[in-house]
């Protein structure tokens, strides 16, 4: 079976969604020797307009670069989420900033939805709100396993200015851990073993959002 994964990074202009998509696509091309395309669309507003980057990764050449059957979508904004969710396949993985995006009960049935306050966490726990997109990249990589996280680290080194590298690496690692916690939480929920979980962060692992030490 041929490998093909369609991902969409959606939000508003200025959040870094296009860069997030580019990092994933470049990782796939350079370090995993797959075919990948990244095509952004945005409005004529410099900041604040609905923006998305479609990334397709495949082991065969990609002819039409707009995603039409999404396996994954990141949404950092309600309007953009509503605008672009129509291309999601059933059971697709959806990652939203749950401070900003509300999803319906029916959508939770249809898609595998993860919510995390990415922008707030980038601002208060990483210390730079502009790293929210890299935190999201970390979560995307952990949730989808579409590219190897160590390969992403290498791309981050080439893509991010040295002065901002450390804080972005922190965001990336925090994203990986946050996603692992959310996955664990889902497993526990399905097993019916937990009740009264905190705000989408399982009590067992809630320390990570305040923990600046490198993971593991």
């Amino acid at each position, binding site marked *: 079976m041929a490998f093909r994964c369609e991902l969409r990074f959606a939000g508003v202009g200025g959040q870094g969604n296009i860069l997030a998509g*580019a990092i994933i*696509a*470049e990782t796939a*091309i*350079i370090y995993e*020797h797959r*075919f*990948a*395309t*990244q*095509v*952004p*669309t*945005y*409005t*004529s507003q410099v900041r604040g307009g609905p923006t998305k980057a479609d990334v397709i990764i495949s082991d065969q050449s*990609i*002819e*039409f*670069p*707009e995603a*039409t059957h999404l396996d994954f979508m990141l949404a950092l904004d309600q309007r953009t989420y509503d605008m672009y969710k129509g291309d999601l396949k059933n059971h697709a993985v959806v990652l939203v900033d749950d401070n900003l995006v509300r999803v319906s009960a029916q959508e939770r049935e249809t898609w595998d939805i993860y919510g995390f306050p990415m922008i707030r966490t980038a601002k208060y726990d990483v210390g730079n709100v502009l790293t929210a997109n890299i935190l999201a990249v970390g979560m995307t990589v952990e949730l989808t396993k579409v590219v190897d996280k160590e390969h992403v680290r290498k791309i981050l080194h080439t893509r991010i200015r040295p002065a901002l590298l450390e804080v972005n690496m922190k965001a990336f690692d925090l994203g990986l851990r946050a996603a692992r916690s959310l996955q664990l939480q889902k497993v526990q929920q399905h097993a019916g073993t937990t009740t009264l979980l905190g705000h989408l962060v399982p009590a067992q692992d809630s320390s990570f959002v305040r923990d600046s030490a490198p993971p593991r």
Partner: protein
Amino acid sequence: MADVQIMNGNQLIAEAALLAGCRFYAGYPITPSSEIPELLARRMPEVGGIFMQLEDEIASIVAAAAASYAGYKSMTASSGPGISLKQEGLGMACMMELPLVIVDVMRGGPSTGLPTRASQSDYMQARWGTHGDHMIIAVAPGTLLECYTETIRAFNMAERYRTPVLILSDATLAHLSSGVTLPPPDTLEIVDRRQPAVEPENYRPYEISATNPVPPLPNRENFPRYRFHMTGLNKDATGFPTENATTVLADENRMINKIMDASADIESFEHYQLEDAQVAVIAYGSNANAARVAIKEARAQGLKVGMFRPITVWPFPFQQVMELGRKFKHIIVSEMNLGQMIHEVQRALQGRSELHSVLQAAGTPIRPQQILQKIREVSA
């Protein structure tokens, strides 16, 4: 994939221009073409060329034309509304017979329209945007690699035929990033304008030989020695104005025929799975990729479909489409506008085939599913 580079369509056009020998760029930035000047502003000085941002589109095409007059391989880039402004300078370059490459990264319109969205609505503007009888060459790359190779071909044709050449790209291709393996430079043909065989005092800028309707034009090295006049007025062999009816008519015809008679060299197209097809799709540019996916899907469902994809879109491949009309009962034209190339197709088919269309000018690319649906309807 050791030598794979990650670039978008605009960056590939800019790099190809440098490889083709372009050493002068003048422009005024406009979405979705702005990555072209962005890259050239940095790269042009590195190769000893000149980059100019001017006050508007008109000034920039005139500057680019003037640089070509002075022997430089020259380029300007813009998008729909900017190309509208450039039409005056484009006509002047046609009349002066100046080699010039004009990139039009098409977006929605008319007017400011949809600045960031993909479109193919400049197809007719490329041909008839400037006034007066004239011929134009326009190429529409369909892939990232073609953004590179067709730009080189555009420069070669501009130099060989002393004419402006348009590159019709679109927002999807312009902003699509992917891994591209570029052909080694030594495998690519680079054409330079033919040099005068006569001494400067005997040179006349529009004097042709019996065998070549394209007069020679001094390059950068020779330009300082050759003094000659050019004008937007109809001219004779000296480059000075004339209203002599015989001279004007002969010159107008020569300017058109120097391109039309070279169609074997200028024409470029792709036949995709047409051999055993019963339905033919005609599509160009990035939209042809949607058609290709639709055709694969249709074939998986047992429908025999193929595609004719013009790469040189002007002059229109009239003969090629006429032959499709002899072979196919049904032809589907798909383009990201409300119907432009389809008029040329209709003219070439002369009623032989039943003509169908998948047209869209909504800012969003046409999806493979839309073309597939039309294929199914037509095949039923």
